[in-house]
């Protein structure tokens, strides 16, 4: 039950993009088409889950026992950068179709603040390994949902007659705001 609440909380109530402002760059950058948005979401799901598990292990079995908490930022970002490379190499070898689908998005993920953000939040919230993993999966599903919804709206926006000054990024941001407003309707669904 606890895990279901975490999933609902991260996907709907406290959506990573629309309520916590993590991963805005890919949210605005690769949301032109639904298919690329889904690809990016899948890649984030993959990397975020693995990254959260690895950084949790590092925090609890290396940084905490040796009292190296101040190295958290440096070690996490290096691990995530290396991890993305490793995932890319393994995926290329093991599952070429999956690599075909996610490949182009993987290098972009290193600078996606959602990955580092979730890794840090899991430590901050004192989750154990399983809850932390569920939290990461929930957040990446929330990211996927927000991204696909936003891409769907933007595809329609292409055909609309937008006032001249608002074309491009301004109208996209306003649309994201309205989407965030819709999501704030879930605010009291579960205590999170």
């Amino acid at each position: 039950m606890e895990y279901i609440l975490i999933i609902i909380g991260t996907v709907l109530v406290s959506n990573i993009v629309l309520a916590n402002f993590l991963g805005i760059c890919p949210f605005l950058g690769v949301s032109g088409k639904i298919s690329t948005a889904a690809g990016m979401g899948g890649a984030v799901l993959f990397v975020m889950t693995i990254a959260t598990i690895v950084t949790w292990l590092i925090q609890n079995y290396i940084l905490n026992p040796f009292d190296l908490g101040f190295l958290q930022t440096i070690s996490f970002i290096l691990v995530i950068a290396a991890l993305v490379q490793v995932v890319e190499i393994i995926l290329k070898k093991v599952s070429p179709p999956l690599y075909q689908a996610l490949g182009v998005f993987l290098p972009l993920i290193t600078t996606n603040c959602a990955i580092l953000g979730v890794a840090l939040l899991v430590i901050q919230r004192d989750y154990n390994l399983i809850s932390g993993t569920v939290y990461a999966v929930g957040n990446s599903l929330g990211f996927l949902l927000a991204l696909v919804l936003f891409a769907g709206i933007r595809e329609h926006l292409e055909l609309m007659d937008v006032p001249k000054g608002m074309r491009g990024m301004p109208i996209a941001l306003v649309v994201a705001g309205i989407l965030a407003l819709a999501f704030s309707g879930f605010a009291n669904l579960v205590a999170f």
Partner: protein
Amino acid sequence: MNQWQNFSKGFFKENAVFVMLLGMCPTLAVTSSAINGLGMGLATTFVLVMSNLSISLIKDLVPGKVRIPTFIVVIASFVTVVDLVMAGYAPALHEQLGIFIPLIVVNCVVLGRAEAFASKNTVYSSVIDGAGMGLGFAMALTLLGAVRELLGNLSLFGFKFIDADGILVFILAPGAFIALGFMIALVNRITKKA
């Protein structure tokens, strides 16, 4: 390009937020008040100046293939410094900005300037570039924070003008997107791009 142009481009012509649309996560997340925006902007400025300084000093020693990881380590070190200093001397602000302090590491503005400017230019102009870009970023965040605080809470830098409720949505998450959207449209209008 003289040094004054090098400094001032960060404010208008190449403003990180309004023109280049970089560093969106902290821009949207911490600007619920002007003072938070200013604090975040100045923290980023410090990291930008110091990382530009260090990277332009070591640029000839770093092999091309490992330059991005090297830059990230340099940036992460300064971010850790900012994190610890803020926790020590400005605990309230540190609490407010929370996770977005360590996330300066993945702010594209910082890595972008390291890669695009500091790794190719002299120490002096890299520092000037870092200061200009950083202060331009701080200016944008403070402006956005001021607009949101004014509309959402009818106050500015914590000073309340009228004892009434503002439009609450501008303090909350949706207001960040909407306010930034309209501000970018305004900047586009002023610079005659639209």
